C-alpha cells in the first residue's frame, strides 16, 4: 500500500504558494495527537519498567524514571513469581518459542501445498472445500475447546508443548491455505502446463516453478502465523500445564497473582517481553504484516 500513495491525495492538494496554511497545521496537530494516543501505553510500559516500584505507587506513572533501574526486567525474566514458582518468565518465553517455530513452519508448508493443489490441480468440489476451510478460520474456538481437550488427552498430548503445536497447526491451516491459494490463483497456470509438457511431475513443478516465486507470500504467511500463535491466549490457557504454558498465559498469571505486593514495574517489563518478538517482526517487516492483515480480512 505504499506504492499507491500518489493518486487520490491529488484532489486535496493544497496550493503550494503559501508556506503557512492553517488547515495543514490543524491537520498535523491532529495527527500528532493521535500518535500520542497510540504511543501512550507503550510509553507507560517502557518508562515504568525502568523505575523502582515506589515511584509508580507515588503517582509518578507518567514521569520519566527518577532512578533508572533494570531490576524489574531482571526480576520479570528470571525471578518473579509466576503462578506457584518464582522462575520468572524465561521458561515460558522458551515454551512459546518451542511452540511457535514448528507450528508456523508446519502450517506454512501445508498451506503452500494446499494452495498449490487448490489452484493448479483443481477438482470437483475444490471451491466448496475451500469455503469450508475458510469458515473454519472464523469459528469461535470456544466451540472446539471441550472436544479438543479430550482429543489431546486421547493422543497423549494433553498439557504439553507438542499438544499446543498440534492445536495451532490445526487451526492455522485455514489462513495459510487462504494466503497461498489467493497468491497462486494469480500465478499463471500456463507455466504449470509448460512444465507438465516439459515432463515435470507434481512435486517438481511445486519445487522448481512455484516455490521460487513464493517468497513474498511465504513471508506474509509466516508473519501472520507467528503473530497469531505467539499472541494466542485461549488455547494456551486451555491446553497447557504449568510447565508448558506459553508466554501470554504466564504474563497473565504474573499480573493477576494475588499474593504479595503488586510489582507494577515487573508487570510492565514482562508485558514488553511478551510483546517484543511480534513488535520486532512488525518493525522489521511491517509491510508484509499489513499485507497479511488485509488479505486475512478483505481476502485480497
Amino acid at each position, binding site marked *: 500500500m505504499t506504492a499507491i500513495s500518489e493518486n487520490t491525495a491529488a484532489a486535496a492538494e493544497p496550493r503550494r504558494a503559501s508556506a503557512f496554511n492553517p488547515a495543514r497545521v490543524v491537520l498535523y496537530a491532529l495527527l500528532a495527537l493521535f500518535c500520542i494516543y497510540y504511543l501512550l501505553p507503550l510509553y507507560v510500559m517502557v518508562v515504568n519498567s525502568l523505575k523502582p516500584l515506589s515511584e509508580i505507587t507515588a503517582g509518578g506513572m507518567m514521569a520519566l524514571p527518577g532512578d533508572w533501574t533494570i531490576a524489574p526486567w531482571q526480576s520479570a525474566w528470571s525471578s518473579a513469581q509466576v503462578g506457584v514458582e518464582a522462575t520468572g518468565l524465561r521458561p515460558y518465553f522458551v515454551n512459546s518459542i518451542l511452540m511457535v517455530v514448528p507450528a508456523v513452519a508446519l502450517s506454512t508448508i501445508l498451506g503452500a501445498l494446499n494452495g498449490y493443489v487448490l489452484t493448479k490441480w483443481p477438482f470437483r468440489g475444490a471451491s466448496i472445500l475451500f469455503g469450508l476451510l475458510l469458515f473454519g478460520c472464523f469459528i469461535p474456538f470456544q466451540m472446539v475447546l471441550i472436544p479438543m481437550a479430550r482429543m489431546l488427552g486421547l493422543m497423549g498430548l494433553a498439557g504439553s508443548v507438542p499438544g499446543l503445536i498440534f492445536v495451532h497447526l490445526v487451526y492455522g491451516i485455514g489462513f495459510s491455505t487462504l494466503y497461498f491459494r489467493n497468491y497462486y490463483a494469480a500465478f*499463471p497456470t*500456463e*507455466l504449470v*502446463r*509448460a*512444465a*507438465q*509438457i*516439459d*515432463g*515435470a511431475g507434481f512435486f*517438481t513443478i511445486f519445487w*522448481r*516453478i512455484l516455490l*521460487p*516465486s513464493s517468497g513474498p507470500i511465504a513471508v506474509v504467511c509466516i508473519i501472520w502465523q507467528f503473530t497469531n500463535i505467539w499472541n494466542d491466549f485461549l488455547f494456551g490457557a486451555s491446553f497447557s500445564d504449568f510447565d508448558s504454558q506459553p508466554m501470554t498465559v504466564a504474563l497473565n498469571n504474573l499480573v493477576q497473582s494475588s499474593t504479595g505486593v503488586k510489582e507494577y514495574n515487573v508487570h510492565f517489563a514482562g508485558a514488553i517481553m511478551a510483546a517484543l518478538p511480534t513488535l520486532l517482526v512488525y518493525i522489521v517487516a511491517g509491510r508484509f504484516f499489513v499485507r497479511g492483515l488485509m488479505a486475512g480480512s478483505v481476502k485480497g
Partner: protein
Amino acid sequence: MGFLDINKATKAYGAVQVLHETNISVEEGEFLVLVGPSGCGKSTLLNMIAGLEDITTGEIAIRDRSMNGVKPADRNIAMVFQSYALYPNMTVKGNISFGMEMHGIAKAEREKRISQVADLLQITHLLDRKPGQLSGGQRQRVAMGRALVREPDVFLFDEPLSNLDAKLRVDMRTEIKKLHQKLGTTIVYVTHDQIEALTLSTRIAVMFGGYVQQLGTPKEIYDNPANMFVAGFMGSPSMNLFPAKVVSANGVPAAEVRLADGNAAMIPFASGRMNGNDGRDIILGIRPEAITDRDGADRNSDAVHIVDMPVEVTEPAGSDTFVVSQIGGKDVTGRFRADVAVNAGQRFPFAFNMEKAVAFDPQSEQRIA
C-alpha cells in the same frame, strides 16, 4: 493413417459439449492452423492433443500410437504458449534446458542442443538473462527455443503472436514460417487471426461452436468457403454477403438484387453457374477485391458485370480505396484502385467479377455454388 490423427474426438464438460466429433488427419511436415473466434473449441482441441485436457470420447494418435491417457511429457510434443510461460525464476538457458533435464538428457547433450537452438534463433547473447529482462519478441524466441530443443514429433502453438505489437507480429510470423520451411516439422497452430491462418498454414481448420466448419488449404478456404460462417470469418475486409434472388435473364441465370436507392439490378452469374435455380432466394457472397472500379477489374475474367450504385462512404487505405454501398440492406464493400476519383454521394459504376462469386442457402447457410 497420418502422422497426427484426430479420430472422432469429442470433449464435454458435464453436459456442455465444447468439441463435437472431430476428424483431422495431419501429415508429417504439415502446418495445420486451427482458427476461429474465442470459445470455438480450438484451444480445447490443442490442449487435448497436448494431453493437458482429457479426451471425452474418440482418440488422438501420434505416429499411430494412441495418446489417450498418455501424460503430456510422454507424447513427445512441445508447446509454445500465448503468454510464453517462461519460468520467471530461471535464466533463458535454464528455461530451455528444463524439459531436457526432466527427460534425463545428459548435460553435455543438453549444452550442445541449447547452443544449436540459440544459434538458430539468434538468442545466444540472452542465455544468461532472466525472462523479466527480455522484450516481447525475445521472450517469443526463447519460448520457441524451449520447444525446438526438445526435437518433438509435433509442435503445438497456442496463439503465440497475440501478445506482440502489430509490427513485431508480422516479423515473427515470417520467422515462424521460415523456421517451418527450414526444419520441416509438423505443427498445429491455434489462432483467432485469420491472416495468420492464411499466411502460415498448409491447411486450415476453421472452427466455430465446437465444430470444424471447414478443413482445407488456405486457397480452398478463401475461394470456396463451405458456409457463410467461413466466408465471413476468413479474409479482411470480410466477404460481402447480401440477399439476392436467382432469375433468368435471356436464358442465363442472374442474381436480382435491390440497391440502396430502391432500384433493382440484375447481375448475371458466370457461365455454367446456378443453372436450374430460378426463383430461388440466395445469399450472394463476393469478396471486396472482386468488386472493383471498371478499369481495375480482372481482365482474364469473362464474367465482369458493371452495376451503377450510389456510393455511401469511401475509405482510402493507401494502396487501395474501399468504397461502400448497400445491397439488400447490407453494406457492400468494393476495393478500388487508390487513384480512382470517387466520392460519397455520387453514383459510380462498380465492376462485379462474378467468377469469384459464391452463393449460399439462406436457411442452412451452406454453399450452393
